[in-house]
């Protein structure tokens, strides 16, 4: 990691020197950011997903999005991918006879597609007008249409293809999952997790979700374990729990919960990898799957972010405007000597 950064620094210093012919460049390599400690997110466990798409309907409703049709009868909301009007999609993987769930060969599997809420999001780095921002406390990557100029650099930058633009609307916005942050003040968390009947999508602190994901990976396939549903409540919180109706809880941590809905289930055959733990410096949405992640549409990403690389280049060249000012000074000095007072006589010998 650090050797890669040094390489980058070297390249830049060399490139800059070549570019401007100036000597000392203020090289400010920046590391990939990590998740804030109180980061909120989701854990999606594909082995628990039954493909009911209740989360898609709930997402539409929570975000007040219109139905999108892909069938000729135009009756049901049937988006084929996330879009400016669909922030959450359950996609399906299928192979051969489709006999076994979560099997790569002759099997089928589901995968949730929605914003990963990166620790170091490309969209936030790309956005020229701070319309995409990352909350310093809960880490939610939020969108502000009142600042957005619609340049769609965020759309181009995201490695997951998440921010999408509403091309069908002259006042089109960027659409993406914001973890239902607009519902948090009422004690509601992400609608997809609220409605998921099997707890395949679970809301919580990313740190807790990561521990839960690792717990599942360590279990023996076929054995029985307990699965929470809705919101993952960390052990420390359970000790503080108030009344059984959940009202006591709301007062303590702000979430309007139903009573704990833990159920017993069989452990699936996992790929031994928590997707999002390290990808691009980590994401706040984590995923478990029985099928290799690349086959279910999750890109193979390095542990460092492109935003860090991009900003290192940007600030090496323009940090504090030192280099531009130095170059401007040199150019002005040279130009002052070479510009003849009455220029239009031209053609000097």
């Amino acid at each position, binding site marked *: 990691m650090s050797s890669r950064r040094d390489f980058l620094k070297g390249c830049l210093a060399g490139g800059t020197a070549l570019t401007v012919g100036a000597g000392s460049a203020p090289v400010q390599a920046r590391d990939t950011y990590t998740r804030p400690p109180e980061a909120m997110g989701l854990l999606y466990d594909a082995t628990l997903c039954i493909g009911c798409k209740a989360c898609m309907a709930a997402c539409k409703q929570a975000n007040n999005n219109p139905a999108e049709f892909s069938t000729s009868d135009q009756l049901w909301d049937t988006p084929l991918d996330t879009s400016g009007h669909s922030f959450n999609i359950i996609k399906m993987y299928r192979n051969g006879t489709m006999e076994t769930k979560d099997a790569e060969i002759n099997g089928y599997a589901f995968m949730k597609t929605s914003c990963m809420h990166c620790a170091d999001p490309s969209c936030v780095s790309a956005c020229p007008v*701070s319309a995409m921002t990352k909350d310093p406390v809960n880490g939610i990557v939020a969108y502000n249409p009142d600042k957005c100029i*619609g340049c769609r650099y965020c759309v*181009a930058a995201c490695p997951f293809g998440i921010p999408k633009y509403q091309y069908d609307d002259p006042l*089109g916005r960027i659409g993406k999952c914001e973890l239902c942050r607009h519902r948090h003040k009422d004690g509601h968390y992400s609608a997809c997790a609220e409605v998921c009947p099997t707890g395949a999508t679970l809301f919580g602190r990313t740190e807790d979700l990561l521990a839960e994901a690792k717990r599942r990976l360590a279990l023996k396939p076929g054995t029985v374990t307990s699965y929470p549903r809705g919101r993952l409540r960390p052990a420390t919180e359970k000790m503080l729990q108030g009344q059984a109706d959940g009202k006591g809880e709301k007062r303590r941590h702000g979430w309007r919960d139903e009573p704990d809905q833990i159920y017993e289930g069989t452990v699936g055959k996992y790929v031994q990898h928590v997707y999002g733990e390290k990808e691009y410096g980590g994401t706040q949405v984590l995923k478990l799957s029985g099928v290799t992640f690349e086959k279910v549409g999750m890109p193979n990403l390095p542990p460092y972010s492109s935003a860090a*690389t991009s*900003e290192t280049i*940007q600030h090496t060249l323009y940090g504090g405007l030192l280099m531009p000012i130095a170059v401007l000074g040199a150019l002005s000095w040279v130009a002052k000597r070479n510009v003849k007072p009455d220029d239009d*006589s*031209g053609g*000097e010998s």
Partner: protein
Amino acid sequence: MSAQNHSVPVPVGGPLLNKTTFIAGALIVLMAAILLYRFIFGLGSVTNLNDGYPWGLWIVVDVMIGSALACGGFSVAMLVYIFNKGEYHPLVRPALLASLLGYTLAGAGVIFDLGRWWNIWNMFWPGSVNPNSVMFEVAVCITAYIVVMWIEFSPVFLEKLGLRDMKRKLNKFLFLIIALGTLLPMMHQSSLGTLMVVMGSQVHPLWQTPFVPLLFLLTAIIMGYAVVLFESCVASSAYRRSIEVHLLNPMARIMLGIVAAYIAVRLGDVIFRGVIGRSFHLSLEGLMFWLEMACFVAPFLIIGTEAQRRNPARLFVAGILLVLGGSLLRLNGFLIGYDTGPGFRYFPALPEILVTMGMFATEVLIYVVITRRFPVLPREA
């Protein structure tokens, strides 16, 4: 007027209404109609843009390639004022005019493409700007450069209007404007390349490199000279003027030097990063890489010798090849080598193409009007 020095710029004169301006005018009217439709019904109504290819013809061709094509003014001004090659002075004004128009239209082209254009002020609002964003740097720099170029070019209008006092005052700090006019394009032409860095592995490794700012800067300078070669030949034939071969020949030599440096950096980079092998894969990207490379290598065969460079036809062809090479670098990096995942295709829609043609037509029309009525081109000997 003063001494009839042969390089003093004078208006070409002649009619403003002819076949060229008529066709350009028709294309502009068509463009205006399409743009009106676009602003009423949204981007999707006239373009094939989609979320897999959020940037299409208007951004990659009109803005990225268009602004690089408009680097003639910067490239020639750098030669004249920074490297003190005064003999190239007659080339400055025509090149600057083309640059001015190219950049102003590239700036306008951005507005057509912005999905929420009414919020554009945020780009300059201290409470909104994001200095981490490469796009922010590009936008501010290009805006500043457009203003600087109009000032740099304003003596042409001041001369015509006889405002000698104002011109004298302007001359006092013209050196600063010229220095800015050299610095700003260096900054944003390199940053136009840096735009792709944050896209990470979505950009093919043959184009995704930390050296991309240098590659874009070098090719912008090269394209600047190449366009001057091209324009000089076209303007000479259109206005039936003699070609300034005595200037173009040595300028082409300097240009070839920069092309050689570019090829060294480009090949060195793909070899050093160990991705050169990818160019031999039987793929569109591999083919495009070598096509792009060929456009930079071929000029050495065409105008490599002094004698070859005295032939205007050869200068013209080499200029076109280098313009094509630089354009391919941009097209390959941002469209052909850009892949955000399966399921997306992009080829510009007819209205998109017509708008791009309308933009170039606008440039031609204004160039013709200004060179015929204002002192831009050097007086014929």
